[in-house]
């Protein structure tokens, strides 16, 4: 099958450990790689026939940033990359997949990830004169005017 082929090829090209490959629900497989390997990994996946990049998810986990590149072709292959909190930079995949531009721009403005080589690094969703930091980061709060009231209410509900 396509997936097995791609996973084996990735493992071989990137010299990956068996523990880097994780099976997920819904016919998905997740492969953890380092950020230096991103372009090579994407090239390998594209070569094995999985050319559709569904999305790039960015999230904060234990203070570090996690980038997930979700590829799909009947089966899903996800690349998982951890970026340190103080240096969230990674090569842009736009030269290989032009369709990744919006996904990278969104992660850039929402989380402050720097994509090196991103062709058009301007805001996508936020206003041009936005000065409120990176809204999707964990330390950014909603309703900054009245955080106390909000917290109080939620606590009351759950108890």
């Amino acid at each position: 099958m396509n997936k097995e082929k791609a996973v084996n090829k990735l493992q071989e090209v990137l010299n990956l450990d068996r523990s880097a490959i994780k099976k997920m629900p819904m016919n998905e497989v997740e492969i953890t790689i380092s950020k230096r390997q991103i372009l090579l990994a994407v090239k390998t996946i594209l070569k094995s026939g999985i050319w559709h990049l569904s999305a790039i998810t960015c999230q904060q986990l234990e203070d570090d940033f996690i980038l997930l590149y979700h590829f799909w072709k009947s089966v899903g292959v996800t690349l998982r990359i951890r970026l340190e909190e103080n240096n969230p930079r990674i090569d842009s995949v736009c030269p290989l997949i032009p369709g990744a531009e919006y996904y990278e721009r969104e992660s850039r403005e929402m989380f402050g990830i720097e994509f090196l080589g991103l062709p058009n690094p301007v805001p996508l969703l936020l206003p041009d004169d936005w000065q409120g930091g990176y809204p999707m980061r964990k330390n950014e709060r909603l309703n900054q005017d009245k955080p106390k009231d909000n917290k109080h209410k939620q606590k009351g509900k759950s108890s």
Partner: protein
Amino acid sequence: MSKITVPIGPQHPLLKEPLSFLVSLEGEKVMDSTLRLGYVHRGIEKLAEQRTYIQNVYLIERICGICSHIHSTTYCQSVEALLNLEVPKRGLYIRMLLCELERVHSHLLWLGVLAKNIGLNTLFMYAWRDREIVLKIMEEISGGRVSHAVNIIGGVRVDLNDKHLSLLHKGLQELKKRIEEILRSIENDRGFQARTRNIGQLSLEEIKRYCVVGPVARASGLDIDIRRDAPYAAYDELSFEVPLMTEGDVWARSVLRILETIQAIRLCTQIINNLPDGSISVPAPRRVPAGEVVSRAEAPRGEVFYYMRSDGSQNPARLKIRTPTLTTLITLPGQLKNMQMADVSAVIAGVDLCIACGDR
């Protein structure tokens, strides 16, 4: 010749939702265009992190005013996968029925918008008149015309009764007749062809490079459909065709969407004829175990993608939503290049944008 720049949007008669285009013209020819999103950005991904899994079902449904049901379907699917919950067959079938009715309604809405943008007001009236049939059915079933709130985690909220079924049988038959009529008139109408043929063409190569999904991709010859390639709900038990065209222009997209509407009606008929007995939902626990899940579904505009991470608390730790419109938007500047200014309206309508989905 001197260049002028024409702004289209954020508020413009061509656009049903706010989006901003800056089109540079040389004479009547479009030389370049840039677009700007974010006018309906509501921060739903962040909001979802502050709400419980159950509250989120209703939040997620408000991402889009056209394809609201498919969003809640994909969301519930993700939570159910994390909970390892098996939804009863009858519940899945009712979910699919609403998905397909929504596809019919979305495609007819789009046809009306395209017809109006290219000056065919009669077709616009016909398409929106016929859309009322499906909206009335959905209102009868769920109580809402576009926001149905039918999905709950573990199944659906409403059951179909005999009144619904007879309404469906009658409505679908009528709808099928009318859509075949529309297809005939589009295929023979010279005015429609003149405005849509060879307009906004995308090659298969471009479609792949930009990761485009849905009817826009299928109109360029890319055979991709989540319902068939990675069946969710109970699509593997139904038989349907995935229409495919190769021209890749607005005309191909129009014909393809109408063919898809006919398939969707066929699917609806199959669903109500084979509706299994039994319960429509199972009770779902409120706490979701820690884990990650990726879920996909075929919205009227193509693949919708959800990623969810749970940390074991009552709110999702991260919910990522990628809607099909985002993939189509990125191709628009390329499609508009070298077009006549008068064709811009046909191109914008032809790709079927849902800005609220794109912005979230």
